[in-house]
């Protein structure tokens, strides 16, 4: 799991530029599914054919980052954010471009939370001409990938959001044996508002839609009203600001988790959304919920997860695919 996760995390792919990580995922799963295709938006859709219920699992391949928008006379790169960037955390971080150019993100502001428009990337170029040789307008940058093990089963790194979901799905694809008609969608452009999952869900028209994504925790500086902690199991989403999960599906998920002795937590996320929302409203609509991986410090350059929760999420994914 750790090696797979590392491979996925170290393949930078911001929203709209998911081709590289898709390639990695494709090679991981191609021998384990009956059909595999990429749709017009770039969603990778793997199917395990069955006669039972049509279930769509969905984890997004994209991560947050920056597009290079302008190169100054001094050879600095002005950027525009892709997805919800925490500029406080991104300040003075090492960043890397799609072609491997390294630099440092300079906040260029005295404010606690600098605005992205004030920030630039210093790639060590002496002038515009030098910079233009290695960076093109429209290139993307991300904060440097990272994966380190801490105490217990805790890991820090980035981007867990949502490569950990992709890893869970890949693992589940390899393990699952089910009568159900299973679709595993590795979606694009989630970080910019769930744009990829909607056409995929429209085309598949599933009975159940289950996203696999990270969620916040009510500890470690997270929202205190949340009753979710690291290391207490994966979470079953009841509500966030973009979706109210299907009460029927939530009930089934809880029952299946309990039957399989899978540790889970009930999650109500005060702010944020996932691919569950577009799945819910695409076409005639689906019953949706989310298997969440409790994650501290989301959207910073150092997210934290507990591998126990990841293992429970894999178990729940497999159990749902087989028993729903």
């Amino acid at each position: 799991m750790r090696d797979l996760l590392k491979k996925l995390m170290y393949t930078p792919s911001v929203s709209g530029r998911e081709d590289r990580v898709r390639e990695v995922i494709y090679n991981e799963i191609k021998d384990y599914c009956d059909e595999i295709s990429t749709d017009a938006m770039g969603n990778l859709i793997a199917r395990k054919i069955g006669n039972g219920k049509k279930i769509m699992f969905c984890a997004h391949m994209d991560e947050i980052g920056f597009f290079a928008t302008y190169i100054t006379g001094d050879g600095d790169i002005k950027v525009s954010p892709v997805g919800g960037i925490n500029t406080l955390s991104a300040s003075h971080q090492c960043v890397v471009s799609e072609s491997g150019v390294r630099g440092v993100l300079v906040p260029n502001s005295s404010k606690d939370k600098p605005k992205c428009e004030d920030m630039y990337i210093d790639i060590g170029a002496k002038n515009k001409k030098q910079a233009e040789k290695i960076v093109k307008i429209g290139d993307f940058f991300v904060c440097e990938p990272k994966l380190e093990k801490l105490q217990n089963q805790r890991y820090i790194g980035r981007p867990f959001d949502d490569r950990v979901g992709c890893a869970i799905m890949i693992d589940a694809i390899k393990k699952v044996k089910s009568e159900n008609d299973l679709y595993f969608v590795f979606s694009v452009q989630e970080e910019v508002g769930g744009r990829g999952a909607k056409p995929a869900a429209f085309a598949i028209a599933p009975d159940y839609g289950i996203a696999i994504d990270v969620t916040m925790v009510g500890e470690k500086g997270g929202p205190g009203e949340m009753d979710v902690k690291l290391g207490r199991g994966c979470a079953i989403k009841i509500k966030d600001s973009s979706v109210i999960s299907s009460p029927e599906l939530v009930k089934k998920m809880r029952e299946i988790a309990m039957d399989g002795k899978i540790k889970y937590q009930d999650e109500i996320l005060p702010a944020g959304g996932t691919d569950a929302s577009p799945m819910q409203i695409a076409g005639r609509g689906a019953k949706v919920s989310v298997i969440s991986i409790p994650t501290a410090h989301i959207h910073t350059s150092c997210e934290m997860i507990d591998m126990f929760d990841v293992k429970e999420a894999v178990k729940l994914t497999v159990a749902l695919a087989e028993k729903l």
Partner: protein
Amino acid sequence: MEKIKEILNILISATSPSGYECLGADALENLVGDTFDKIYTDNLGTVVLLKKSKKENAKKLLVDAHFDTVGLMVTRVYEGGFLGVCSLGGLDTSVLPSGEVTVYGNEEIYGIITSTPPHLKTGDSSAPKLKELYIDTGLTKEEAEKKIPVGSVATFRNKVEYINGDYVISAGLDDKSCLCALLYAAQALDPEKMEFDLYITASAQEETGKCGPSRAAYDIAPDLAIVTDVNFAKTGKDEDFEAIECKKGASIDISSVCTRKTVKSIMKHLTSEKIPYQVVCEPRATSTNADALSISTLGFPTVLMSIPLKAMHTPSEIVNLKDIKSLADIVSSIATCKDIID
């Protein structure tokens, strides 16, 4: 009016906070009995009721009223059996303190929303934030945790009162007064005379922005859609001279999202039938299901009609029964008219 009261009382007592309409779906199905030819619930929780016309090749009329109401959801159980909550839909927090609720845990639990005495308050006097309010269950933390899983929903404990004759005061009149009008109209409609197959959508998740009928419309593919919802009634203040008035009948909305041609044709029809109505204007979007419904699937003519309502999203919403009757009359009249759409 007694029949309307009877339907309304049952609809209001059905628990249906946004996203959890399933709690009240049985009550709805029992209520309508055999009025309809087909009843089904879609994936979002919208209940679709079909009453067929006897005419061959009848066109399809979708009439929507949302079934969901605003509500609360338990996010956490604290010491002393106090429950942290978040809202389902746009709740006016200023009506919450000292209000009574029912929590739907493993059993129904009575609770009171907390209110700090003014002389012991630390903050300012502004309206309370939901984060600072709790449901007081009078249970211990351990008992509450056992009986009330995180994610349990809660709704206002309601009292329906009929005041000064035809006014009704209750929680949930948004939008059950409209749904009441539709069910009342459907029960009275004669299939021989109906020009349309009538699809009533008691839709889910209007208050939380998911536009239930758009999902149902995907399968129905109607020829005409009417969204019915409540609208702010005039309360006598200077600034709301544009608002509609209670007791003067349902209103037809003129809005950029409604199909102008159809709106005009309906108005012409009602005028010729001498059925009174009010007019209300929304230059832009309407903040109702009409917005999303009008652009769903391949698109179809969409109009919006409203019942005037006072004190929206509170446990004491006020509607006049005459306006419910008026909406029922208008919908019946359209369902039996040949010339509304080409």
